[in-house]
Each structure stands twice: as C-alpha cells, then as structure tokens.
C-alpha cells in the first residue's frame, strides 16, 4: 500500500489540480480504493464541502422562469409608460394652425392697409393732376385775356 493521502492532496484532487499529473492522480485513486482510513477522510471532506455548498448555494429557482417572465412583463409595462410620448402630433398641428392663422391674419391686415393707403395716394395723385390741369386752363385763359387786351389796345 502506498503512503496515506493528506488533506492537501485530497483538496488538490477534488479541485482538479491533479488532472495535469496523471501518475499522481492514478496513485490517489488507487489508494482511495484500497485504504479505508483515507477513503473515510475523503468521504468526510466530501460531506463537509457538499453541506457548505448547499447551505450557501441554496437557490430559490423553483419558479425561476416564472420570476423572469414576471419581471419582463413588469419591464415592458414600465417601458410602455415611459415611452408614452406627449401628443407631439397634436401640438405640432396646433402650432401649424396657429402660425397659419397668424400669417393669414397678417396678410389680411397688410392687404387692408395697402387698400386703405392706395386710394388716398391715387386720390392725391388725381387731385394733383386736376390742380395742374386747372392751373394750365387758368394760364391759357389768362394768356387769352392778355392777347385780347393787347389787340384792343
């Protein structure tokens, strides 16, 4: 029988560190198969580590898929609430309508203004023309009078 296996070697064996040493691995396996003392020690270690792992690694995964599905649903709801956008289309339509009405009103105002200015300007121009005509007629009448007076005189 080969020499007994100590705890350090058993831990190396358990963790897989001996996988790279086939001869040592074989020796340990053979020894464990033939030595009650070492096998008991190995079984004790196995129980201890298994207990520790199960105590710390106890997971509530009975309904893992369900828990994840519930979370996905909650996230989707949340996302839909967050993504609920303000009524941009309505706001844009309102703005466009307001601008259109404003532009229309402005144009109307300008049209009205130009209409109110143009007649007076036209009238003024017409008045000036009449005045000029009248003054021209007066001039010719005056010239006639002067010529008549000269011919009489």
């Amino acid at each position, binding site marked *: 029988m080969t020499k007994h296996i100590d*705890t350090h070697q058993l*831990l190396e064996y358990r963790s*897989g560190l001996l996988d790279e040493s086939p001869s040592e691995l074989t020796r340990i396996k053979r020894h464990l198969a033939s030595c009650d003392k070492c096998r008991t020690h190995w079984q004790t270690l196995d129980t201890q*580590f298994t207990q520790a*792992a199960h105590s710390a*690694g106890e997971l509530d995964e009975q309904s893992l898929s369900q828990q994840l599905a519930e979370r996905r649903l909650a*996230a989707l709801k949340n996302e839909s609430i967050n993504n609920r956008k303000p009524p941009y289309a309505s706001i844009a339509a309102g703005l466009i309508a307001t601008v259109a009405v404003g532009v229309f009103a402005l144009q109307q105002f300008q049209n009205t203004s130009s209409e109110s200015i143009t007649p007076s300007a036209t009238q003024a121009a017409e008045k000036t023309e009449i005045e000029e005509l009248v003054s021209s007629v007066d001039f010719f009448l005056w010239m006639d009078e002067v010529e008549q007076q000269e011919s009489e005189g």
Partner: protein
Amino acid sequence: MAYLSIEQFFIDVEKKAFHFARFALNHHEQALDVVQDSMEAMLRHYADKPQQEWHALFFSIVRNKVNDIRRKQKSRSSVSLVSELSTADTKQDIIEKTPSLLQSPEQGIVNAELSSTLNNAVNQLAERQREVFLLREAMQYSIKETCELLDLTPGTVKQHHFRALKQLRKLLAEVWSDD
C-alpha cells in the same frame, strides 16, 4: 445547439446565467435583474448576430452587468466599510458559534445554525473563490462550464477551487474538527 428563436436560447441559458449572477452578487433580486437586463441588451444589440456567437455574447453581457453592480457596490461600501467590518461575521464569530454545534454533532442534521455558519464561511471567501466553489460544488458545473461562465482558464478555475476548499477548511476548522 441550434435554436429556433432567441427566446429558446434564453430559456436554455437563463438558469446558468442566474446561477452565475446569484453567486457573484450573493443577491437573489439583483441576479434576476442582471439576467433580465442581459436578455434585453442581447435582444436590442445582438439578436441579428449568428447563433454560434450568442452564448459568448450573452455571458459576456451578464459578466459585464455583474461587474458594474460590483463596482457600484464597492464604491458605495467604501464609505461604510469600517462599520460593515465591525458587524460582519468573522472567523471569530464562527468559532464562537461552534460550541453549541459541537454539543450535538451526532445528529448529522444541518440545522439552521450550522447552515448559517457554513453560509457565513462561504461568504467570507474571495469573490472568485466563492463563485467557483458554488458553481463547482453546489451546481456541479464541469470545469469547462465554469470556465465559460467566468471567462477563466481551466487552470485558474482549479486554483480558485483549491484555494476555496483550503480556506473553508481553515474558516470551519472548529466545526469540521475531523483531523
């Protein structure tokens, strides 16, 4: 493995992702958040990638999300580290709890107190050691699977596992007085 859809892929990997996140963060709800967020990120950014890349991409996302949470926790906890250390279960706490446990070792039953003691010891392990220990011992993942989950080489996984076993023996020396 060929998947009919990405949903089928998620069903296939969600448990592994959860185990990794749960052991890495030691928090059930955070682990669920990580898995869910990773699935969302995968859907948004990588769903159109070839199927053979999904596994590596998905677990890379999961690892990044776990690391993000850890980083946040570390920066948050650095302020209150002293107070936490004073209240945390130390090796001394474990030793102090042992007399009552040692009074009835023949029961062979992992009672609540023993379970808590073992739990505390595992939680005192370094992050990587704890992850490897729980994935290998509690979930019985192979070295290859553990490597894939943690993005480590087989040699590193074995080293972390060995150190975890050694450290647990040290922390639980009073409870496991078999030598």
